[in-house]
């Protein structure tokens, strides 16, 4: 639908304009955000260097590559959080969105997608500095790069769905933080956010194969730095598509129930 495309481009444009105005505070956020992977990187590089060059089969240079690409992937998979949901309901913005003849998720998807443009521009100097300091080893085929570019948006969509689902819990309770923190903990451990999945014990790796988390962090990163085979690369995209579809379905179901509840108990 041409109108929908028009809506997406307009919203993205607005996100870019607004994001650019807040670039200073966005930089603060980003620097705080890269502290996390840098810490992991330093710890694992120390272990690798002390254990004869590799830890879990990865050299310090490979860890550096992993975690630096991590920062880009992390930027891309930042989406609307349950805390935003709470704020939105509190300030009455959700009512405004409900009055529009359009599903509110489109606004969030479009807005955050637009914000990424500014984020990536701000990220480039940071990545350059990190590369100079930590000397990542980096080899990637054109196919890998192509898959990476698609995979990060797949990760974006999967995480958008997941966090929208979590956010909708606020329809029923204001105490969503506990569930959200639990989700974040599991995601941290099983998505490749804390460590490359190959460093996890076998049973954990098996478990994460059945969960959507690895497709939001590990897969895009590994696509670029992990020397995956073409089969793995394309198969991974397929899995991402599957999880996006599952997520979309769940969002529609829960949304209907959520709006019914929201409209019954007052707002």
């Amino acid at each position, binding site marked *: 639908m041409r109108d929908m495309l028009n809506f997406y481009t307009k919203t993205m444009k607005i996100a870019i304009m607004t994001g650019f105005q807040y670039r200073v505070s966005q930089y603060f956020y980003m*620097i*705080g955000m*890269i502290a996390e992977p840098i810490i992991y990187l330093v*710890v694992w590089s*120390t272990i690798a260097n002390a254990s004869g060059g590799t830890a*879990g089969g990865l050299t310090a240079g490979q860890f550096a590559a992993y975690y630096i690409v991590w920062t880009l992937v992390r930027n891309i998979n930042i989406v609307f959080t349950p805390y935003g949901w709470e704020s939105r309901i509190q300030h009455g913005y959700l009512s405004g969105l409900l009055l529009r003849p359009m599903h509110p998720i489109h606004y969030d998807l479009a807005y955050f997608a637009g914000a990424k443009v500014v984020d990536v521009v701000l990220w480039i100097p940071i990545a350059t500095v990190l590369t100079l300091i930590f000397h990542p080893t980096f080899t990637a085929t054109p196919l890998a790069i192509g898959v990476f570019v698609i995979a990060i948006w797949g990760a974006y969509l999967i995480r958008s769905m997941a966090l929208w689902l979590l956010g909708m819990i606020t329809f029923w309770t204001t105490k969503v933080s506990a569930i959200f923190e639990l989700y974040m903990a599991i995601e941290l451990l099983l998505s490749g956010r804390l460590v490359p999945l190959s*460093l996890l014990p076998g049973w954990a790796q098996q478990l994460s194969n059945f969960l959507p988390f690895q497709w939001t962090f590990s897969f895009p990163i590994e696509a670029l730095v992990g020397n995956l085979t073409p089969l793995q690369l394309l198969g991974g995209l397929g899995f991402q598509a599957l999880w996006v579809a599952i997520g979309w379905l769940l969002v529609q179901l829960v949304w209907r129930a959520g709006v019914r509840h929201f409209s019954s108990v007052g707002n």
Partner: protein
Amino acid sequence: MFRLMWLFFRVGTMNELQYRVNFFIQLFESLVSLGIGLVGLALVFSHTPTLDGWSLPQLLAVLGVYTLMGGLIKATIQPNMQRLLDEIQQGTLDYALTKPADSQVIVSVREVRIWETVDFLVGAVVLMIAVVQLHNSIGVLPALLFAGLLVLGGLMIYCFWLIITTGAFWLVRMDNVLELFQGVYQAGRWPVNIYPEWLQIGLTFLVPIAFAVTIPADALTGRLTWQLVAGAAALTLGLLVFARWFWWFGLRHYSGASA
């Protein structure tokens, strides 16, 4: 000043008691956070016997102090600084300034998140387990040194945050500066000694995380030196003086006095 602190504490507590669920939620979140820390340690030690000369019990002690200090920060320092920042940015600081008490005290103690002290307790438990594994008992002197260094570290973090937040008087667009700190504070999970030299300096003098976590932990893991203690005391004093002066300077700017 202490009476003021007690009054704010009482009101804050009464407020929070209404929300008993918050206690369980907070406990749950603390345990989840701790769980992640323990998993991290487990993963590290599944690939190596020591980390840069630090043993598992020693790192556990650091994790304990990190959690404990984190609880203190989230209960007392963070909510006050966040509120101060909001008020400066929205121009509603005047309410705090027109009260008949020292403005720095008011903006520093009026908010209390009582449930965050759960982190303090959880961290203390972890710390005790770690110390028991290391020494089988805690001597009086190390314990006192630890407590003292903890207080100094906390004061340094407070000064650091107050100085940064005071900067908002000039640089109004400071959203996310507290997120920045929270991100950098995570570096305290691990002893700062493992970081590259330049980062260590940053984490000691720029953002005093070394003094908040690693050095108090040193008191209980047997790595403390007298230079560190003296340094901590001197730095704390210096920061307190500077923070107070900077606050006064910022207020004058805020109320339009010529610099």
